[in-house]
């Protein structure tokens, strides 16, 4: 006898809720010099030069609802070296070597500038397709990677919430495992609900191994049963999801022209720096697959991709510059690949990290864990410009910035205006949306 998904997943979530270390669903590498979680792939659109998307007209929204692409920057991105208050004396004062001088940045407005490697994002800014939300954070900031990333992914500074902010939307809106897709091996907590979860899709081949006997047997044992345990049934359900997702994604990708290959996984790298030869790195490979699925017409409404390595306690400047370059190349290539056809006009991409870093550099040429940081929101129909106030560099909290915009207002906007659901399916009331879409 088969159980409903609800029955078995509640059991699994109950077991997970009882855990301490065991409840953490996913993390990614963040040490500088670490690769992103997925095997790197070199070929495809990610390797193209990184000029901004062409100046043509923005594709029209299709009216089918938006597509959200969430880019997680693991490790705590240094917001002050990303969106740079280059005219403020306190900026270079605290960072005599780590800071950038006025002739080393890409000025925007209001005394703020982009990191010099964010040239593609500057192009989107000039076209009015890049919103920059400043000073994003939450009250009583936590400086632990794990706790702060949990807070961002669950949208709950309170302890004990184990579901992700998109996972709760999944819980309320059906069973299809393709509604939300994480590209890469592990499934981040933001896509984990109590009842259902998004799917994780590897960047490499999706081919199932084995004979017909294995294929039919795998389908047969991937059925939750009444006598099964919570975790056992979750093993079975994951197998069923794999078969469903695998079949549908293979069909979708088969509809695309062969040009722009998915790339060939190059296997595990130990350095991260020399495995990804393309400018966009592993993030580019992940976004390449997202672009293909969107162009092929997948009805996925939320995608999750990630880039790690932002925990720059030491020798930050080169590492961070390289990561900025990868982010810029990957995002720029992604929008170029989407072009003007199909559902490109529905796409809204956001980047975030678990925290920014301390205003003043440490003696290691790096920065320690901080608080608020900027969030980028990009897409053909995003209303570009600044949102939220730039945090003060003089009124600090233990050496860290005070946040000016609660991150849950961004989530409320994404749920309400992009995915098209009442934000209260996932969030508490009291987080007004922002007008960037």
């Amino acid at each position, binding site marked *: 006898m088969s159980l409903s998904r609800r029955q078995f997943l509640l059991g699994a979530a109950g077991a997970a809720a009882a855990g301490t270390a*065991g409840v953490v669903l996913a993390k990614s590498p963040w040490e500088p010099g670490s690769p992103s979680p997925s095997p790197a792939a070199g070929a495809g659109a990610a390797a193209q030069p990184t000029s901004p998307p062409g100046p043509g007209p923005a594709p029209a929204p299709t009216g089918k609802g938006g597509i959200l692409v969430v880019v997680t920057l693991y490790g705590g991105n240094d917001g002050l070296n990303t969106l740079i208050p280059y005219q403020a004396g306190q900026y270079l004062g605290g960072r005599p070597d780590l800071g950038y001088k006025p002739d080393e940045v890409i000025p925007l407005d209001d005394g703020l500038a982009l990191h010099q490697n964010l040239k593609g994002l500057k192009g989107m800014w000039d076209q009015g397709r890049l919103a920059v939300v400043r000073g994003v954070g939450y009250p009583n900031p936590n400086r632990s990677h794990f706790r702060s990333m949990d807070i961002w992914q669950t949208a709950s500074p309170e302890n004990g919430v184990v579901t992700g902010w998109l996972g709760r939307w999944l819980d309320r809106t059906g069973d299809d495992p393709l509604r939300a897709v994480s590209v890469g091996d592990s499934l981040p907590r933001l896509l984990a609900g109590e009842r259902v979860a998004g799917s994780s899709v590897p960047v490499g081949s999706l081919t199932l191994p084995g004979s017909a006997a294995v294929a039919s047997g795998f389908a047969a044992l991937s059925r939750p049963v009444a006598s099964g345990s919570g975790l056992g049934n979750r093993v079975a359900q994951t197998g069923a999801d794999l078969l469903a997702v695998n079949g549908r994604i293979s069909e979708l990708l088969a509809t695309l022209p062969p040009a722009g290959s998915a790339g060939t996984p190059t296997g595990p790298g130990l350095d991260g720096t020399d495995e990804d030869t393309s400018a966009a790195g592993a993030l580019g490979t992940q976004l390449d697959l997202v672009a293909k699925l969107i162009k092929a017409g997948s009805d996925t409404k939320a995608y999750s991709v990630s880039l790690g390595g932002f925990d720059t306690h030491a020798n930050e400047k080169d590492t961070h510059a390289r990561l900025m370059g990868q982010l810029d190349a990957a995002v720029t290539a992604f929008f170029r690949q989407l072009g003007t056809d199909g559902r490109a006009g529905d796409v809204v991409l956001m980047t975030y990290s678990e925290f920014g870093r301390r205003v003043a550099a440490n003696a290691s040429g790096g920065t320690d864990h901080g608080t608020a940081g900027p969030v980028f929101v990009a897409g053909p129909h995003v209303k570009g410009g600044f949102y939220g106030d730039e945090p003060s560099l003089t009124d600090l909290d233990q050496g860290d910035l005070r946040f000016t915009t609660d991150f849950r207002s961004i989530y409320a906007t994404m749920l309400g205006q992009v995915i098209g659901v009442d934000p209260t399916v996932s969030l508490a009331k009291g987080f007004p949306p922002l007008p960037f879409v």
Partner: protein
Amino acid sequence: MITTLWLTVIVVAMDTSPADLRSRIAHLYRRAGFGARPDELDAAVAAGYQATVDRLCDLGAADPAADALPPPKVTPYTAAGPADQAARQTARRETVALSLWWLDRMVVAQVPLREKLALMWHSHFATSVQKVKDPGLMLAQNQALRTLGGGNFLALARGVVEGAAMLVYLDANQNRKASPNENLSRELMELFTLGIGNYTEGDVKEGARGLTGLMVNRQSLAVNVNKAQHDDGAKTYLGKTAAFAPDDIVATAATSPASATYVAAKVWGHFARPAGPGDPVVAELAAGFAKDPDIGRLVKAVFLHPEFVTPATRTGLVKQPIEYVAGALRAVGRRAGTDATLVAQLTALGQAPFQPPDVGGWPQNTYWLNTSFSLARLRFASALAGKADVSSLSSAAPADRPAAAARLLSVDGWGPSTAAALAGAAGDPRALLTLALVAPEYVLA
């Protein structure tokens, strides 16, 4: 020191029907080791639960089979810069060799608990070769996890936290008197000894001051306290004020009262099932561990606790990929050898040795249950079944083959979905073995 607590527990765990005894001992072998082969299980059942616990937990016993495997040669990492491809290639190749060596130790181990503990501590004191670069430092840490992993917790914490691999990983060489780097100080308390909520941001800053100067000499790889970089002023750390030296900081954190609870929860969560805050079993174990911080005795108390054999515990863990692969190789009588494919498969399964995803180590349970890892498991199982000796299956009548697979893999039996799937594949022993290896009953620990 054996406390009354441990003795009480031993009495309660004694029991009952032969079938249940066999099932409990199989469960014990899965958790304390990498599963029991049929002959091992028969002998253990004859000896009884208590005697089997005693034997599996004898961490003083020699392990000639594992120790006969020489660690691979490692080359000091001396990359001239990011462009030094040759040094990187060497480090990569040696890390693969190191991974296979450890996997093989698990496959042949006669004291498998020693390797299980080393694996748990590898995730607890997570350190990655991706940043450390030098496989020799990773090997030295791995040996420390193995030799210290079943003893006194403070000795383990000192051995690992003050080891070269960890110091490189958490930027200790950049932790200087003039401007402390907080990386090691924060993770020492948050992840290694106390857990979040048991220290303040002030403790992080003061701990970083106390740890200044603890550095690795990049030429000799020796760890020393560099006096010129050590802040020898007074610090207020975890409620005490003194001119703490690096050793004192590690000792203060590792022997703080919250540490016993944190470590007991980790050990219970790793060998039994994840524990929640205020879990009474953890409180009970922590009380014993606070008096006697011996990891081996703590683990033994876990195996003898009545809660260890309840249905909730028996179905409360998913096998980590490394133990899944080691257990499968052991069950079908294969070795890791020099098969680098195994390391690629572990990477796809999400758990390449010496490469934890971050300083928090690998998460547990539902982390391993997603569609990508499900595909990787199916691929590993199919590849292994294609090479394995399946004579124990093919020699049985087709109708008996699912039961033979359960014996081979030390699984109590199959639930209805799996039984139907295996019955359908009974004519093809390799397909049957593939399916048995990905069945929920085997994927759970």
